[in-house]
């Protein structure tokens, strides 16, 4: 960017040549009054406050719309300018409520600031007051209100909803005196398409859009949001011992201050009265309050009697890296087994098993920020706006920067509104779809020959296996028109850098690993990997699911994906932990449940998980859990799973502890304690260490999280360079092997992490899903997520506003199917599968294709997973929660 020299009120300023006069002035701490300007938004120049005079140019210029030029001389104040500003401002005041002292925005109001600077004549504007009657405040949204009587029509909310959020819930409605900020059909905000992210609320310069809960915090603590894998940086506001606010950190590279509805408003669960407060021990079928000593001693005794293959542990993708490290160390070093797993098994196990085969490392290859410069984003099997809202903002921003977006999804998700191409494949046919695209790229010779010859292996063998994937047969399997598949293939191959985004729609299948391999084949073929803004990006679901995997809460690897059956690794960890370790792989999440049912596993230690709701074929899980001799659940709330426990231990939430989370882009970020643990609850690592110590184990004498981090990072090369000091302000992305290393923005730059250093093409065949609709069960049920809830909703349903925004489970069904089954909106139906039945309300919607119905799994009243099938992927052992056959019966 070239620099220019300008002069503002006699002060020489050097600035970038693309800056406006207003930006140049504000940067240099020179105030020019303004109301419609916001640094995140394009200038519109509607408030007419930033009038300036430019030497040599007649009349006034708008500072926010005028770009600086070499030698420009600007005068920002004169009698004439102020007179103009004054009149304009008086007209704004004439239409503005005058109740400043009781207004939420008092002392923080830009209209007050401008008025103080310009000065107005009250007598004059009183006469101009418009006769428009008072408009009722829109209080429909549970988190914020809209008071039209205070609106100054700056349009910042409208532009935020458009430019930042890409939702466009708001626009100007009507004309002249009657102009208001309005939703489609002038409906209350809650009934509009508003996602309640609150981005407009934080930007509103006056008190027109304001949060309902407005307690000012006495201090703020920088930490990481506890929802989803994006890992947004937030400031939690604390007043006394309560969390009273949350705001995005504008300096964060991850979210740049932006938050979704859960991150901004979903913190009430922390201080919820239902939090578990004391340890509970089940006596005669009833939970009785106990002391920590009682509970821990009981656990130590019981666990001591169920060591090795009689024991299993479920760690948690929601607790910190340090806590996952301690749980897996406890399982391996104290209990003598590798039977440890966590819910990544139910989400991204195929990512790990698939991408490790092809690239050598199972994580997002690129950074979130890189989406901004991607030219083609191919989103497949990811409802990004609902499950990873802030990554969706990056994708929408890429679109604004000129990128193309391809969405492949069985359902017409929100991202389709922004897509250039939408491929609506039948659930479970992704391998066929991806190979159809691969076939087009190969047939039309659009592949990257240089990249393939230099960096890949097995290409020659691979292309001979594409016979079965002619576009005719792929169309037949997927239901996607041939022309669309071809167009998508060309777009992806030729309009690079291209990046693939995927999530549960790819992984939760019996052929989940195949799906992932198909994706990596496509990326390798076009050379869209190992480059900036081009890669394969599995979006991790929970806040620390990446970290839980990295820390070795998996049955086959020690921390850092070091296989337990490789003697060198075993020796390394035996030396570090001072005990003998088992060299056999442990069993996976789904297998653990089966082994419990068979009576082979007697004791289960479960940290922060709710498999009764989240695991496929939930009835099977319930049956298994009730067979356990001893079951310990460690959680922040009483869950459906905890009901089966013998001992429940109250854990501290993310706001009550120190540690680190690793987000989906491999960035290790600091989590900081904002308040003391609620009541008698304790941090998860403290609890696990206490159990270990009471069993006489050595190596669990940690006094804080940082000590655990030091031990863990010392055993993992990729983490070795990451210390609490280094990530104090900005997190580092692994691999980060040394203290001087800057972290790794994107993976596989020079070579792949495979033994040969080359990536591998893997031939595949298309396999059908285990249970497809038939005469008896004619509909295909697939599962999805709601923006307003998170996982089994143990936290989000404790937040009143989120409950209001999404209050119950809905069975989404295509209008044609609804007609065929004679159901309409709001009807209650029984949904039955071969494994169970649930009752649920119907929502007729075009988002589902014919023959496909969908439900979330957020609501215990309609436990969707009692319907799903526990058929698993042979490699990754992930259950097929995306495809099962159901029928519906009207109630």
């Amino acid at each position, binding site marked *: 960017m070239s620099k220019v020299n300008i002069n503002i009120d006699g002060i020489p300023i050097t600035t970038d040549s693309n800056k406006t006069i207003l930006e140049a002035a504000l940067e240099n701490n020179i105030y020019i009054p303004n109301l419609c300007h916001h640094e995140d938004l394009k200038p519109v120049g509607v408030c007419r406050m930033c009038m300036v005079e430019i030497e040599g140019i007649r009349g006034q210029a708008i500072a926010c719309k005028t770009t600086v030029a070499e030698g420009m001389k600007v005068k920002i104040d004169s009698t004439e300018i102020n007179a103009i500003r004054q009149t304009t401002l008086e007209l704004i005041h004439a239409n503005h409520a005058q109740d400043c002292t009781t207004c939420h925005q008092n002392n923080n109001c830009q209209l007050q600031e401008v008025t103080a600077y310009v000065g107005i004549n009250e007598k004059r504007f009183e006469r101009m007051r418009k006769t428009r009657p008072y408009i009722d405040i829109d209080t429909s949204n549970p988190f914020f209100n809209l008071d039209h009587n205070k609106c100054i029509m700056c349009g910042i909310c409208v532009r935020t909803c458009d430019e930042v959020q890409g939702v466009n819930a708001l626009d100007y409605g009507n*004309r002249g005196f009657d102009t208001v900020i309005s939703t489609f059909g002038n409906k209350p905000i809650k009934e509009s398409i508003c996602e309640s992210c609150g981005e407009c609320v934080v930007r509103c310069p006056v008190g027109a859009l304001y949060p309902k809960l407005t307690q000012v915090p006495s201090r703020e603590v920088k930490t990481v949001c506890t929802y989803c894998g994006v890992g947004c940086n937030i400031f939690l506001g604390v007043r006394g011992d309560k969390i009273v606010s949350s705001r995005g950190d504008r300096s964060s590279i991850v979210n740049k201050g932006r938050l979704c509805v859960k991150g901004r408003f979903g913190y009430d669960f922390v201080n919820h009265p239902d939090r578990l407060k004391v340890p509970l021990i089940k006596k005669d079928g009833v939970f009785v309050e106990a002391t920590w000593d009682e509970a821990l001693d009981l656990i130590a005794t019981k666990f001591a009697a169920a060591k090795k293959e009689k024991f299993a542990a479920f760690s948690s993708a929601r607790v910190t890296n340090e806590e996952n490290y301690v749980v897996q160390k406890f399982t391996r070093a104290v209990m003598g087994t590798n039977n440890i797993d966590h819910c990544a098994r139910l989400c991204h196990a195929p990512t790990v098993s698939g991408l490790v085969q092809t690239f050598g490392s199972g994580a997002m290859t690129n950074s979130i920020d890189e989406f901004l410069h991607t030219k083609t984003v191919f989103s497949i099997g990811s409802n990004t706006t609902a499950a990873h809202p802030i990554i969706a903002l990056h994708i929408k921003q890429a679109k604004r920067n000129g990128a193309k977006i391809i969405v492949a999804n069985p359902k017409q998700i929100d991202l389709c509104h922004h897509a250039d191409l939408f491929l609506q494949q039948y659930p479970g046919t992704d391998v066929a779809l991806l190979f159809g695209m691969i076939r087009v790229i190969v047939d039309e010779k659009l592949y990257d020959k240089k990249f393939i010859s230099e960096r890949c292996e097995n290409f020659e063998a691979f292309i001979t296996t594409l016979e079965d994937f002619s576009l005719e047969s792929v169309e037949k399997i997927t239901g996607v028109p041939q022309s669309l598949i071809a167009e998508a293939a060309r777009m992806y191959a030729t309009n690079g850098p291209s990046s693939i985004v995927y999530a549960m729609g790819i992984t939760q299948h019996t052929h989940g690993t195949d799906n992932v391999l198909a994706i990596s084949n496509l990326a390798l073929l076009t050379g869209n990997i190992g480059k900036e803004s081009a890669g394969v990006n599995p979006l991790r679901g929970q806040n620390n699911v990446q970290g839980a995997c990295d820390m070795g809460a998996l049955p086959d690897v020690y921390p850092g994906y070091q296989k337990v059956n490789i003697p060198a690794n075993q020796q390394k960890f035996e030396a570090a932990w001072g005990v003998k370790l088992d060299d056999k792989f442990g069993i996976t999440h789904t297998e653990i449940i089966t082994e419990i049912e068979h009576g082979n596993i007697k004791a289960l230690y479960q940290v922060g998980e709710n498999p009764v709701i989240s695991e496929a074929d939930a009835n099977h899980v319930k049956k298994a859990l009730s067979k356990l001799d001893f079951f310990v659940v460690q959680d922040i709330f009483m869950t459906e799973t905890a009901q089966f426990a013998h001992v429940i231990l109250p854990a501290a939430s993310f706001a009550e502890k120190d540690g680190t989370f690793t987000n989906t882009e491999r960035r290790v970020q600091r989590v900081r304690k904002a308040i003391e643990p609620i009541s008698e609850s304790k941090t998860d690592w403290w609890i696990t260490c206490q159990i270990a110590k009471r069993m006489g184990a050595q190596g669990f004498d940690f006094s804080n999280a940082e000590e655990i981090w030091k031990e863990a990072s010392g055993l993992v090369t990729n983490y070795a360079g990451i210390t609490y000091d280094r990530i104090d302000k900005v997190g580092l992305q692994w691999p980060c092997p040394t203290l001087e290393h800057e972290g790794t923005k994107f993976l596989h730059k020079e070579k792949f992490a495979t033994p040969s250093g080359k990536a591998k093409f893997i031939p595949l065949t298309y396999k059908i899903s285990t249970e497809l609709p038939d005469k008896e069960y004619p509909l295909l049920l697939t599962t999805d997520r709601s923006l307003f809830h998170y996982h089994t909703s143990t936290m989000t349903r404790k937040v009143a506003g989120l409950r209001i925004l999404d209050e119950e489970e809905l069975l989404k069904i295509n209008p044609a199917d609804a007609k065929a089954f004679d159901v309409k909106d709001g009807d209650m139906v029984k949904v039955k599968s071969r494994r169970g039945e649930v009752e649920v309300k119907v929502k007729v919607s075009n988002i589902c294709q014919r023959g496909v119905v969908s439900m979330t799994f957020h609501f215990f009243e309609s436990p969707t997973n009692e319907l799903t099938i526990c058929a698993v992927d042979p490699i990754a052992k992930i259950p097929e929660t995306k495809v099962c056959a159901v029928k519906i019966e009207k109630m």
Partner: protein
Amino acid sequence: MCECLETIFKKFKGKEEELIPLLQSVQEEAGFLSESAMRDIAKFLRIPQSKVHGVATFYAQFRFKPKGRKHIMLCRGTACHVKGAPRILEEIENHLEIKEGETSADLEHSIESVACIGACSLAPCITVNNKVHADLTPQKIEALFNKRMN
């Protein structure tokens, strides 16, 4: 989406700048712009629904409720105004028990006031389904609508 919309959409390319002509065509066909029609228009042009709403509510020519079978346009031009148009409006409203901009529940009548219908020499005047009724007085209004009701 109803068939009539599909027929109209066929005449357009689906470009954002076609919004106003498209709104006009739909209104001409359907008599008003329903929410579902505006949703379909937004989808067809690939623009936000709120934008369609914003543009449609900006222009006085668009209506969001169905017209009555007898659509009354009341002239509020200068000549009519001077010769008592407000009084005429009041009289019509009283007779039909609906306000300006509204449609009666039985969809029989609707009232709209317009800036000028170009018949100043006949002021004050209204049109009922494009038929002009001139030199109106409250008595004439009574007769006009009573006769119709009988």
